């Protein structure tokens, strides 16, 4: 609660920021959102190095924004929107798909599950990865996903259903029970 009010005070445009207050507010928002955002970027792009770059870019763009005041949930949603746009821009400007590699970041346990899901992520289209991640990992509603991806709220339901079916068909023989 204290974190939320601190972040809300920081993101209000009429704030009287001291350098220390600005730093503290941003630090709390960053700590709350940077890891989930990195996970999203890494699994949507399939590359940890891309996730590292885009994470920095996302927060810089967020700090440079000129938008009305937002609460913590809105800030989080806005960050995912910026991240999704950056992913799409990058995809348009380069052919990352051809250079995708499995994400390996020094985690040893539950190897099977990890490898299955990594294989699944490579199997899915970028848009499907984004939808599944936002819905099932971030727990976003269809409206929030629509805001983050720029898709219509009505089409999210259908696209998400198709992506889930595709994912479950891929994982069914291995882990997911139908």
């Amino acid at each position: 609660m204290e974190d939320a009010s601190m972040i809300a005070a920081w993101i209000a445009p009429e704030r009287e920021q001291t350098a220390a207050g600005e730093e503290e507010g941003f630090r709390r928002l960053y700590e709350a959102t940077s890891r989930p955002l990195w996970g999203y970027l890494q699994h949507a792009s399939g590359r940890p190095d891309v996730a590292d770059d885009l994470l920095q870019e996302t927060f810089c763009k967020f700090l440079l924004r000129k938008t009305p005041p937002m609460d913590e949930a809105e800030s989080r949603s806005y960050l995912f929107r910026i991240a999704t746009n950056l992913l799409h821009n990058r995809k348009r400007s380069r052919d990352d798909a051809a250079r995708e590699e499995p994400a390996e970041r020094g985690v040893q346990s539950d190897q099977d599950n990890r490898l299955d899901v990594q294989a699944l992520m490579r199997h899915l289209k970028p848009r499907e990865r984004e939808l599944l991640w936002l819905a099932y990992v971030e727990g976003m509603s269809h409206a929030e996903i629509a805001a983050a991806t720029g898709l219509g709220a009505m089409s999210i339901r259908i696209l998400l259903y198709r992506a889930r079916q595709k994912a479950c068909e891929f994982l069914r023989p291995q882990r997911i029970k139908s």
Partner: protein
Amino acid sequence: MKPVSCEHESSIIRALHSGEWSSELRRHASECPDCSQALDLAEALGTVARRAEIGCNPPDPLWILQRSHRMAREIAMRRVTRLLAAMRVLAVVYIVAAALWLLRGYAATQYREVVSSMHGSSAGFALMGAMAAVVCVAAGLWPILRDRSEAS
């Protein structure tokens, strides 16, 4: 018509994240094929997400903050530079036009006639030139003054 997914799916996923399960929701999750499938997938993805986060080393937030300040300065600088470049082009055009006008006037009349003619129609041209110069200077200063007032 078959719905594309169960209407309780969002509630199931919210319950998974919050840990707040009602007995009805838990029963529904175990009975509904759509919801149990979504739940299994969410759990599988969630496990991988949590493990990926352990391996994530985001940069220091202070560094991001400083980088954004640098970017803001660069953006402001680019904005001003673009305007200054446009002003420079306008200045060159103005100087060339003025030079051509003077050369033409010099070739057509004697020096004394040029000086005396400044009191006539040329005075109007000179005034317009001075006004154009004032407008150019004001346009050049405006973004700088605006950025300064935003910063304060």
